[in-house]
């Protein structure tokens, strides 16, 4: 292929990446946007294969086929609820690949007797460090999300000082490497240290904060790819890497903002353990609890209902039953909408994916800004496994979740809360909403309660 044509094809690929992401901004075009981005990737791969001399076709082909089969298998086999883990592990592979590329290019240059300039040395070391941290960090995040590694923050005395010194050592060694001491031994030492650093950075973070970590590491894997682009002088690597880097950073910032925590607090706060929480003394304050039949009556005779789903819905996998309840209510003429908090669940947009899986139309899903003014005129709010995102404590400046924007469900005439107990959610704090006079607690596992609700609404 003529090299000009190749570069024009790669430019087309860059354009398709950007416009593919742009199409992700509306549910109607998102699928075609994803297809466009994969087309961009295909073009980039084909151009690369035709443009470069491939000395060992069988090896390369075998590697591609292996990867493609494994990737396709994982993508098909995985449960929708395991999405955060899957993204984490894919992401680790992306980072690992960048590190491997930087390493291979380094060995090639050294083998051919070239001396690295400071520029090349810097990009090689950057690609390796970021890639390796992404790799090991993502694997730990995967382990925490999957429950293979403990979800609790793993802490030890003087941890922060230790990590800081370790990180400083890596930095010093990297500068030495880039400025001259570019021996293979030094290289592998640095790569190994970066792998350890990835582990050290992620273990002190609680399992529930993993989505933020994954998103940040996603940004890193983009930056690692861009760094290898600098190493190889390859534009499309730089462009696609920059896009991923920007996307990861923006999503991380959005998540932190919606939780009203700083990135530093997420990274070093040892917050959000998955483990047992200080249980609220049950019976200390009175609540009004209802059974399925009573809840069904309230819902069936309402004019308008807003459903607020939360992490518990994902845990219980009750989305299909929830959809049935909503359909039944709508058949009875009740106006049903969903209020989706940006950080309900454990991933950005978690609830949207969950409800989409149950075939809920996306134009029934309203976000925070859209639904908040509507609660005033709402008859019943049905909260399913949500807690922090509806906790009025966020309005109290002394609370740990102070300033986090919440859904103002307490403005509705009635509130029904479906959860198993009075236990707190992710943030580990009590929720005054449960004790309001207009609140009815409907205790039980969301799946089972929802099955009962389907039956009772049908009969109501």
């Amino acid at each position: 292929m003529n090299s000009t044509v190749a570069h024009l094809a790669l430019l087309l690929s860059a354009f398709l990446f950007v416009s593919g992401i742009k199409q992700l901004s509306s549910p109607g075009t998102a699928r075609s946007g994803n297809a466009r981005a994969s087309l961009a990737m295909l073009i980039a791969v084909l151009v690369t294969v035709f443009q470069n001399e491939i000395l060992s076709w069988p090896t390369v082909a075998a590697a591609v086929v292996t990867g493609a089969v494994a990737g396709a298998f994982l993508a098909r086999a995985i449960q929708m609820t395991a999405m955060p883990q899957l993204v984490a592990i894919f992401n680790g592979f992306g980072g690992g690949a960048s590190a491997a590329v930087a390493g291979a290019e380094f060995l090639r240059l050294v083998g051919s007797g070239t001396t690295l300039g400071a520029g090349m040395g810097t990009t090689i070391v950057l690609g390796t460090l970021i890639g390796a941290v992404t790799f090991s960090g993502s694997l730990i995040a995967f382990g925490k999300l999957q429950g293979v590694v403990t979800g609790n923050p793993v802490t030890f005395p003087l941890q922060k000082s230790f990590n800081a010194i370790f990180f400083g050592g890596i930095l010093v060694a990297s500068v030495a490497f880039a400025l001259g001491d570019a021996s293979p031994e030094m290289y592998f030492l640095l790569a190994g240290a970066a792998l350890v650093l990835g582990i050290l950075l992620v273990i002190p973070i609680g399992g529930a904060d993993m989505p933020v970590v994954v998103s940040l590491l996603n940004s890193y894997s983009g930056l690692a790819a861009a760094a290898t682009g600098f190493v190889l002088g390859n534009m499309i690597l730089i462009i696609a890497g920059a896009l991923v880097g920007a996307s990861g950073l923006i999503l991380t910032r959005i998540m932190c903002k919606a939780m009203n925590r700083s990135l530093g607090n997420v990274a070093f706060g040892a917050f959000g353990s998955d483990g047992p929480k200080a249980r609220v003394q049950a019976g200390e304050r009175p609540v009004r609890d209802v059974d399925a039949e009573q809840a069904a009556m309230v819902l069936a005779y309402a004019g308008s209902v807003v459903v607020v789903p939360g992490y518990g819905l994902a845990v219980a996998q009750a989305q299909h039953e929830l959809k049935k309840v909503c359909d039944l209510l709508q058949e009875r003429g009740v106006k049903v909408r969903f209020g989706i908090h940006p950080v309900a669940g454990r991933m950005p947009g978690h609830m949207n994916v969950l409800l989409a899986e149950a075939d809920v139309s996306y134009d029934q899903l309203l976000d925070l800004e859209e639904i908040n003014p509507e609660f005033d005129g709402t008859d019943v709010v049905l909260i399913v496994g949500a807690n922090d995102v509806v906790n009025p404590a966020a309005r109290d400046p002394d609370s740990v979740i102070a300033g986090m924007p919440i859904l103002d469900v307490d403005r509705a005439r009635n509130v029904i809360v479906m959860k198993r107990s009075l236990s707190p959610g992710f943030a580990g704090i009590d929720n005054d909403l449960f004790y309001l006079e207009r609140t009815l607690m409907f205790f039980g596992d969301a799946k089972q309660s929802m099955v009962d609700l389907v039956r009772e609404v049908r009969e109501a």
Partner: protein
Amino acid sequence: MSEMLIGLYVFVLATLAGREVISKVPPTLHTPLMSGANAISGIAIIGALVVTGAATTPAVRWLGVAGIVMATINVVGGFMVTDRMLRMFRKG
């Protein structure tokens, strides 16, 4: 202008363009965005193909192969799972 500097220009411009298109993605689609961007980060496959194709020593070749396998998993798996998610988004 050195190759490094050109790369930097391209990087900055791509970041600016990326920032704008990404900040337009609504919360509804943040999970697919995350997994789609993740698939794009598998662009490292390009680098892996280049170094493996040109490899003359076994060490380089094996690092390259590891890179190809990991990157391909990321790309193929990432795009497929994103599509699987997006297929579920339906307008009622």
